[in-house]
Each structure stands twice: as structure tokens, then as C-alpha cells.
């Protein structure tokens, strides 16, 4: 997603990202990031809390007017209502990120991508020989 933000920005469209994985977005580097310290899945606010969602979107829109330079990060002033325990358990053996069908889908997608890559590599090799 950060790559798309960068591309739009480089082509004259100002962007703001609303995201929960601060390190991933900042490592890539985007113009404006509103960081919401929530579990992966709800960057725009707690489900069905329309007031909070409206405030979060408002903070993101403000950044179009306030950010003066790239890599501007604003931290939304919210904590996850059910507590911070999710931070301890995400990506652990006890709570595998993907399991069952989701894991199978992921492995299938990986296998598909590997095939595409191999086919492309073969083609480059063949083209090189002719």
C-alpha cells in the first residue's frame, strides 16, 4: 500500500495513509501517515464506533493542510478499548497469524507466484539464447 501512496504522490496526487503497522509504513517511507495503534484490520477506528471513525478520518484529512514535508507521522490519540494484550500475542506460536484455510490459501498464492516467476525466468533465458 505504501508503494501505491508513493507512486500517486510522485505523480502529483497528495496522499494520506491511515495505518496500524507504523514500522512497515515508515520503513518504506510515505508523505503523510496517520498511525492508529490498533490491531491489524481496523486502522480507521473501532468497528461501529462512528464518532471515533469520524475523528480519525478528520485527523488524517487535517494532515493535507498541516504536513510540510514527507515522512510526517501523526499518532491518533486512541488506545484499543479491550486493552493492549493483543500486542503481546500477535505473530506468536499460541496465536498463529494464519491457520487452517487461510494458511492454505496463502501457500497456494505463494505457489502460484513462484510458477509465474519461474515462467518469466525461463522466458528471459530462452530470449537470451535466440
Amino acid at each position, binding site marked *: 500500500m505504501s508503494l501505491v501512496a508513493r507512486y500517486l504522490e510522485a505523480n502529483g496526487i497528495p496522499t494520506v495513509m491511515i495505518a496500524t503497522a507504523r514500522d512497515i509504513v515508515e520503513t518504506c517511507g510515505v508523505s503523510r501517515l496517520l498511525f492508529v495503534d490498533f490491531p491489524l484490520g481496523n486502522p480507521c477506528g473501532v468497528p461501529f464506533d462512528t464518532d471515533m471513525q469520524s475523528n480519525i*478520518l478528520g485527523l488524517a484529512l487535517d494532515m493535507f493542510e498541516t504536513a510540510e514535508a514527507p515522512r510526517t507521522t501523526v499518532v491518533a490519540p486512541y488506545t484499543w478499548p479491550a486493552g493492549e494484550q493483543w500486542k503481546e500475542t500477535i505473530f506468536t506460536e499460541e496465536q498463529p497469524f494464519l491457520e487452517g484455510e487461510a494458511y492454505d490459501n496463502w501457500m497456494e498464492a505463494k505457489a502460484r507466484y513462484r510458477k509465474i516467476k519461474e515462467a518469466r525466468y525461463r522466458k528471459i533465458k530462452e530470449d537470451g539464447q535466440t
Partner: protein
Amino acid sequence: MAEPVKYIDRTREYYLAQGYKKPYQWAHFDDVPFTKLSKPLAECRVTLVSTSDVAVANEDGEGRDKSNEFLVGNAYSLPTDTPVERLFSRQEYYDKYATHLDDVNSYFPVTRLLEKVQEGRIGSMAPRCHGVYTAYSQNKTLGVDAPEVLKRCREDEVDIAVLTPV
């Protein structure tokens, strides 16, 4: 408040423990492009771009209505005036132990954006919003998907974009 999760470290350790030898190379750039707003926000046309796999459900509620998606590479579109009740996501890359994706506006804030337009905070909403499927290839994202999103933004005379990964 506990520190933000260090996803890059956490996923590296997680996948090493699962037997993967090569850690995923997260995209990293030293230079970051920046475009300033060229007119007041209240005159800007906004679009929404997301990697949340958000889709329009068929009339019968089963499966996905692809009639207006116009998929190119991993980029597709959704008419902005789709009733939000018909939007859903089957995205699997989220913290399913902590939350759920039952409220589209918690990751694809299309209703909240329309409200900001009504309030006059933003000028208007583009006729289409866009989705980009998670790709395993950064080259493909930059070579195909991002240019496709840009093309559609230009067709719709979009001034600014709000982006939401899941």
C-alpha cells in the same frame, strides 16, 4: 500505553520459527515524494484506495459482484455510491484474535468520507474507489497496479487520496 508492535522484527522471528530461511525484504526507500495541496481541501475531490480486499456482494448476498471492478493486474475499482451494506471483505491478513472486519468503515471509511463531503470539509467524492490486492511482487505493484490506480484517479479528476491498508 505499550509501544507499537514492531511488525518487521516480529514477522521475521515468526517466519524463522516456522522454518523459513530467508526473511521477507520489506520495501525501503531513502527518498520520499511529497506533493502539497494545490487548492483548499473544501474544493478537493477525494478517492479511497485500500488493500482490504473490499468488494461488492452480489444481489443475493452470495459471492462477489465483479461487474464494475475492471481488474487490471491487482488493481480494481468499486462505485462509490454502492450501498455500504453491500460491501464486505474476506481479507485474511488481520488480527482475527483481537478484532473482526464486520464494519467496512473500520478499514474502508467510505461512509465517513461521504459525511465529510456533506459537512463541507472536502469538496467531493470521486465516482470510484479502488482496491489493490496484496501482491508478492513489489515490481508488479510499482509497474502495473500503482500506474493503473493513478490512471483511474486522473480519469476521475481526483485531487487527493486516502489510503488504508488492513
